[in-house]
Every structure is written in structure tokens, then in C-alpha cells.
């Protein structure tokens, strides 16, 4: 009889613990949904196609073989404005070695973007993510500026969620540029 009682206890405990662990797993999964789940460094960066400010269509995969820096920005974002000159400088410096900068504008309109690009003298292509499909949905960007670094093989190598300085960009981009040679 004591044995039977013990078995009942063991079964009860096991069922409860398994149920509890299952619920906890669901909780953690639930909370992670908000964070970057699909975008992991070391995986292929999700491809996308967007219109540029000049009306051309551009895909991330067009730049396979080059190091791509995808900078997600908006003109109302102060830190974005702050880092813009550094990004432009990096683009100018490393363009010849195979660096491409794609300035992915989040949900703004053509005319203000054009004005911004002219004011800051931006020479790299600016992509129009008018509804946030790429920036917020596909790349799950929360704070801006966020910058993604994709290597020559299309692998996502780094991600910065702060305004960057020239030396910061250099520190990430240089090894990536050298790696592919």
C-alpha cells in the first residue's frame, strides 16, 4: 500500500513539474518574441528589395561579395543625425575596398529624405522603407539608429544599436573587408 502511495506521489510530482516546466518554456518563448529571435549573428542576413531615393530597385543580395553596412535611420532621430557624418566618411574611405553603405530610412517621405541627404551631403544609396516592412518587421529594429554589418558572403556579422563614431565603424568594417581577400 505504501508503495502504491509512493507511486501516486511520484506521478503527481512528475506531472506537476513537467507542466510547470512546459509553462515556463512557453513564458520564455513568449517574452523572446519581442526580441530579436530570427536575426542571429552568424546567419545569412535576410534578403530584401527596396526602392532607392533615385527610384532604382536594390536588393541586399546584389552586393554579395562586398561588405554591406545597413544603417537604419530617420531624420527625426537625433543620434541618427549625429552619426551620419561618420558613416559618410567611412563610406568614402572604404568604398574602394568593397564597402557598401545602405541607408535604410524608416517610414519617412521622399521630399524630407531628399532634403536631409542633400543637407548632410550623403553619397551612399538611401533606401525607402515606407511601411517598415524591412526595418521593423524583417530586421526587428527597435531603437534607431541600428546598424547591421553583413560580410562578403552575406552573413550577418555584427549589429550596433548606438550612434557610431568613425573609429567604431572602422573597427568592425576593417576585419570584414580584409577577411574576404
Amino acid at each position, binding site marked *: 500500500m505504501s508503495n502504491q502511495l509512493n507511486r501516486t506521489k511520484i506521478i503527481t510530482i512528475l506531472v506537476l513539474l513537467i507542466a510547470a516546466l512546459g509553462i515556463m518554456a512557453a513564458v520564455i518563448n513568449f517574452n523572446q518574441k519581442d526580441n530579436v529571435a530570427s536575426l542571429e549573428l552568424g546567419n545569412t542576413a535576410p534578403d530584401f528589395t527596396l526602392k532607392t531615393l533615385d527610384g532604382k530597385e536594390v536588393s541586399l543580395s546584389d552586393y554579395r561579395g562586398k561588405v554591406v553596412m545597413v544603417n537604419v535611420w530617420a531624420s*527625426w532621430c537625433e543620434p541618427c543625425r549625429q552619426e551620419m557624418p561618420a558613416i559618410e566618411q567611412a563610406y568614402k574611405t572604404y568604398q574602394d575596398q568593397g564597402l557598401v553603405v545602405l541607408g535604410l530610412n524608416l517610414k519617412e*517621405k521622399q521630399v524630407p529624405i*531628399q532634403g536631409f541627404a542633400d543637407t548632410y551631403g550623403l553619397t551612399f544609396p538611401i533606401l525607402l522603407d515606407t511601411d517598415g516592412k524591412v526595418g521593423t518587421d524583417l530586421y526587428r529594429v527597435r531603437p534607431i539608429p541600428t546598424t547591421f554589418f553583413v560580410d562578403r558572403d552575406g552573413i550577418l556579422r555584427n549589429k550596433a544599436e548606438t550612434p557610431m563614431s568613425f573609429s567604431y565603424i572602422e573597427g568592425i568594417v576593417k576585419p570584414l573587408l580584409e577577411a574576404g581577400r
Partner: protein
Amino acid sequence: MKQVQAETQKKKQKSLFDHIWDFFASVKVAIVIIILLAVTSIIGTIYPQENAIPSPNPQFYYADTYGKMGDLYYRLGLSDMYNSWWFLALVLLLAISLIICSIERVIPLYKSLKNQPIARKVIAIRGDRLYANQSEADQSRIDQLAEAFKKKRYKVRREGNALLAEKGRLPRFGAYIIHIGLLIIIAGVFVRLIPGAYYSGMVWLKQGERQYIEDVGFGLQNNGFTLEFYDDAQTRVKKYETDVAVYVGDEEKATKHLIVNEPLKFNNTLIFQNSYDPNPMFKRGKVELTDKASGKSYGTFDINFDDPKPSYQVGEYTLTMINYYPDIKVDPEKGGVYTNSRDPYNPGLQLSISKPGMEGQTQWMMPLAPFVEEMLGKEYQFKLKLVQVELFNMTGLHLQKDLGIPVVYAGCAVVLWGLVLCFYYQHRRIWARLEDGELHIGANTNKNWIGLNKEFNKLIATVGIDPVTFKPKAKKKAAQQAKQLDTPQSDAPHGKEGTEK
């Protein structure tokens, strides 16, 4: 003897499971868990939680609003603690503790009530707090009593010349019914974790704008927002209402004129008129181009402030947009201008005005900052005047979907039922036994002795016994003696009866 054996056996081979079981079966542990839950819940109310702050950026909001303490609060994860793994783990621990504590006590109670003997020893009946006897009685007395008990809705069982009348056994389980209710409530809270079962969020809609809300699977369109004030200075709002339409795909599924506190229900989701943006936005406007000196009008053009065109034509003049700031602000440190948001709250336009044979003249237009425009525009050749403008306020709708609510209400109902059973009903038992021509009647209840006493006196009056009064509570020693003499009276053999609540 048997018990001693079992105990030594237990001590010898106490497995891991026994340890876990004993841990959760302990009332002390349960109380510690409840206190921990209470304390952490209080901490969670120091600052508003992330879902209740008026900002989409909690990482800045807490530091900005509440200073260093706020920043610490956010960093420690307390700003979203009711969804944190450790808080939910505590809730789950409480659930496990509730289940095991209940099993530990409810099974012995059930067994002892089920197996209680009908015929108790006379010496035990004599020891009851409520006792009456009658000499020179016979079997017919028992029959009479049984009849009387049945009338009072007692469940009567007989065995030879003994009788057991019982009423209200279920209330003994009231505490466990409360536990079941609590478990249902906890389950209701966890329903939120099922994908699609819970959503709470704000949607801000401009005039005519449609937004798709992925979490609830439909889109909302603002077909018109009205805002009225009591006073002309627009300080006290009278009402704000939205004509809202629900879209699934491109199909309109429902519409409602939403007013505060009268939500639209669609797909188990409540859509509330929650708030509005107090700052109006520019929608469309008509701009007139005039010669500054002569005041001569060259004509007008229409502009969409949300998405202006790169250039406009007025007569022979071409107006090219050099810069457009939907929400222009002047940087006091660096002196430049920038846009504060993507929405046209305070548009600032920098235009180049030219015509064939004339070089472009650059000038600013800021409808909300006429002084700045004036200051900059001393040398301007032209004047750009907004002659007509359409403004609007964004409406703020709150969406609330929680499939766990009916479960929580069901749990509350069960808890309430358990409480009623606990407080307003008693488990009454009356034993009668005829021995050597003497009738012994003893009664027991788990509470409300006075009530039982009254009923008891009425019942024994049917066989002609004078009223009696119940004895004061027996002292511990006597109670223990009684227990040893008479096990059925103590229902839970491990002495848990006193701790059931």
C-alpha cells in the same frame, strides 16, 4: 504499530520525490511563497509597468521620468516584472504547493469520512460535547429518531441498533474548493501565454489612416475624429469620438462611432476610444504666392503636408522643395534646424522659387512660426501665405483582448462557492446507539455549536428527551484521550484536521 512501521520505513528510504513532496506539502513553504508573491507584487507597483507608460521607449522613459532609481528599476527588469520568468515561476510554485497541500489533506479526509463507522462505542458517544441519553428505550426510538432526522434532511444510515445522521459533508471540503478556484484563476492568467489569446496595445490613427494590427489579425481605419472643448481656449475637453472601421483584408467587417467607455467588440477584442493627440497635424493646405512688395498674387498651389511633392507650379513660377521638415525645430546649440518627428505638426518648408530667365530665390515658409519667417524673410522677394488649411488630431485607440478573463471569472465563482461553504455551512453528525435498554445520542459539528444545539434539542424532543446544552471545548489532554478511544471522531488520522484552513 502499523504507523510506526511505515514511519521507520519512510525514514530509511526517503527518496528525492519524498523530499519534493514534503517541501510542497508544507504550509510554511506555502506561506513563504505567498509572502514572496505579495512583496514582489508591491515592488511592481512602485513605478508604472511598461505596458502602462506613455512612451514606446522604456529604455529612456524610466531614466528620464524617475531619474536614477527609475533607471535601476528598468535595468533590474522590475518595469515588466509581471511577465518575468521568476515572477511566473513563483506563481507556478504556489500552484504546485496548492495542489500538493490539498492532495495531502483531502485524501485522508475523504477516506476517513467514507469509512467512518456507524456504530460508535457508547463511551465515545458519552464524551461528545453534545450528549443526551434516555433510559428504558427500545428499537422504536431509533426508528423515530431516524424519521425525525430525515425530515431535517439528514442522511441517515443504520446498523443494528445504531444510527448515524449526517448533514453537510461537502462543506468540509470548502477549503479545497477554494484551492481549486484559485488554481483556475492561475490557469486563467496563464491563458495569456497561448499565442493569440492576449493582446493589449495602443493604435494611433491619423485621419483616414488604416493600420493592420498583426496580433489581433485585423486592421482599423479612422474614418473621422471629432474633438470638442468646453471653452474657446481649448483647455477642457468635452468629447472625443472616432468613426472607426474594422478591416479584414480589404473587406470592411464592422463600423462604430466610438465614444469613451463604449468599446467596439470584434473577434473577442475590445476597441476603446482611449485618447487623442492634443497637438493637431497639418493635412492639406492651399498656399498663395504673392509679391512681397506689391502684394500682387501670382496664384496658389495645394500641398499635402504629409507627403509633399518635389516641386509645384504657380503660373510661370516653379517652386522646388529644397528641404522639408514636417516638425521643424531649431537646434539651440548648433543653430541648425531639424525635424522632431515624422509627422507634420509644425511644417517648415525651404523652397526655391524660379521662373524662366530668373535665378532661384530660396526662402522659408513656417506657418506656425510667423516670427521666424518674418525674421528670415526680410530680404525675401516673395511671400508664401497659407490661405487655407486642414488640420486634424490623431485618435488613440486602445485594443484589449484577453481570452483568460472568462476563465478567471469562473475561478472567482468557484472560490466564492468554496467560501460560502466554509462560512455558512457546517458538517453535522449525530450518532445514536441503543445499548442495554439505554439510548445514547451524541452530536458533533465543525462549527456553529449553538445552531447544532438548537436543532439537536428539537430532534431529541421527538423522542421525549429534555433539552441539553453543549459542553465547553474539551481540554487538550481530554481531547487526545478521546481520540485514542475513538478514532472516527478525528477524521484526519494524522491530526491535520486543525490545519485544513
